């Protein structure tokens, strides 16, 4: 019974895609998709569905002799704009009439979500064609990246067949069920607004101080047992509001799936310590005490990944 029902759920997903697409995926396809988001000019509207919410954002990207510039304006929810230029991200909140500089440079904005080096992805994901679809009035080619083990979730990528620009990204949960999706609903590829136009509202404003900072460190804390494909991509320490001692933040990623580990010194040893697993939709959280520290792992990865990492983290520092 269980298998039948689970099978039905899977069949629903698979049968929705053209079954005759058995052609092999060009190994360079993922590289082309990764490059297209960075190198092409485009402007369009993206719908982002996650949890029970939907957000609509206008996205423009320009790549010219002066470098990369991208702008995002929300069309639903709180009115906000972001400008990403030469590695700096600025945020504009109309109600506040101010621009906040954001020193966080890594945040990947859709459609620039694939790592520059995509080769390692094929070690941990099975790449599978899922056919063709029409997305935002463009002919799109679909590819599924399905996990080879239980330490990550799967993805569906749909890219414009001719330019390779990513038009839709769907995150699958443990049951290969769509859980979250970015999708262009309208897009022009090959043209973008001028730099002046993209700077609108940003030049005349005075930047305000960043709220929170993370500084890169050489971390004494490292995870000893990593699931296949995961690598340390960042180690930093951050000052949290109301906390004396900084928290160490380690980020491990396989290129698409990412887990964060936080090492926080316990300020009050008498406080009850937490040990448990939390979850909502795709976001899981696992926390446990370790000596005078509290280890917390979280991310849109299976609980097994977080537990494996958090349970094997050690410090090289002598206490």
């Amino acid at each position: 019974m269980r298998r039948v029902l689970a099978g039905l759920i899977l069949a629903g997903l698979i049968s929705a895609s053209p079954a005759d697409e058995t052609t092999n995926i060009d190994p360079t396809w993922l590289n082309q998709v990764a490059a297209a988001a960075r190198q092409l000019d485009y402007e369009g509207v993206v719908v982002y569905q996650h949890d029970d919410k939907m957000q609509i954002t206008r996205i423009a990207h320009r790549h010219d002799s002066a470098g990369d510039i991208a702008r995002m304006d929300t069309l639903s929810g709180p009115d906000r704009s972001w400008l990403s230029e030469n590695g700096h991200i600025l945020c504009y909140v109309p109600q506040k009439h101010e621009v906040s500089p954001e020193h966080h440079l890594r945040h990947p904005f859709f459609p620039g979500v694939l790592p520059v080096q995509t080769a390692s992805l094929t070690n941990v994901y099975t790449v599978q064609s899922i056919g063709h679809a029409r997305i935002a009035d463009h002919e799109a080619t679909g590819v599924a990246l399905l996990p080879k083990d239980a330490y990550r979730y799967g993805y569906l990528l749909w890219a414009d067949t001719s330019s390779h620009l990513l038009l839709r990204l769907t995150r699958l949960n443990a049951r290969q069920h769509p859980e979250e999706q970015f999708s262009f609903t309208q897009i022009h590829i090959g043209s973008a607004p001028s730099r002046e136009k993209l700077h609108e509202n940003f030049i005349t404003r005075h930047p305000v101080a960043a709220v929170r900072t993370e500084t890169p460190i050489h971390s004494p804390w490292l995870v000893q047992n990593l699931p296949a494909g995961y690598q340390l991509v960042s180690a930093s320490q951050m000052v949290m509001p109301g906390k004396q001692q900084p928290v160490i933040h380690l980020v491990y990623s396989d290129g698409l799936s990412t887990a964060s580990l936080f090492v926080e010194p316990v300020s009050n040893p008498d406080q009850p310590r937490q040990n448990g697993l939390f979850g909502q939709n795709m976001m899981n959280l696992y926390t446990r005490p370790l000596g005078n520290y509290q280890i917390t792992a979280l991310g849109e990865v299976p609980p097994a990944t977080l537990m494996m990492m958090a349970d094997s983290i050690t410090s090289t520092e002598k206490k």
Partner: protein
Amino acid sequence: MLEAVQQKSAGSLAERISSAMDGELSGHELQQFIAQAHTSDTLEDWETWHVIGDAIRRNTIRTNLVSRVAESLEAEPTILAPRRRLPVPAGKYLMPIAASVAAVAVVSLSVLRLGPAPVSHLASNTPVQTVAMARPTAARKSATLQQAAPVQQANFDQSRLASYVAAHREYTPGIDSPIMDASWQTSSEPAQ
């Protein structure tokens, strides 16, 4: 004949999983079930039932999403109505846990908002519901999965959670800036 017997016992197990999920087991029954639930097969069943339950509870937007995944759309943009948040039973997010882990509290974080949310939502919403699972003493009282009393110490500090999620989201694809979420929460600016 043997097969029939096996099927029957499997059937009763499935029923008990179903009852446990719906909070219909008594304290004693639940304790028994939890002891039995350490076998991986049971956990697999458990998870499958939750998936099915999730599937039934979900309404159109999910369904739309599924059918939209691999289907070519006839016309875009498609207008989708936002799904209303349904009350979530405390046991909904229970996950299988390795039997070697002595005590793992599984918590449904109905207050965990991953997107930008006004301060009030993070701070004053319903308390985190907790189910202490693997330690029998915690399940000793007549608590069923749905009626489990929140365990004070398992309430994850919400401001810490917000900081962690914001810091994490810097490294994961999203539309919203994670940092904006953080400043949003600390500046008490209304989200509307």
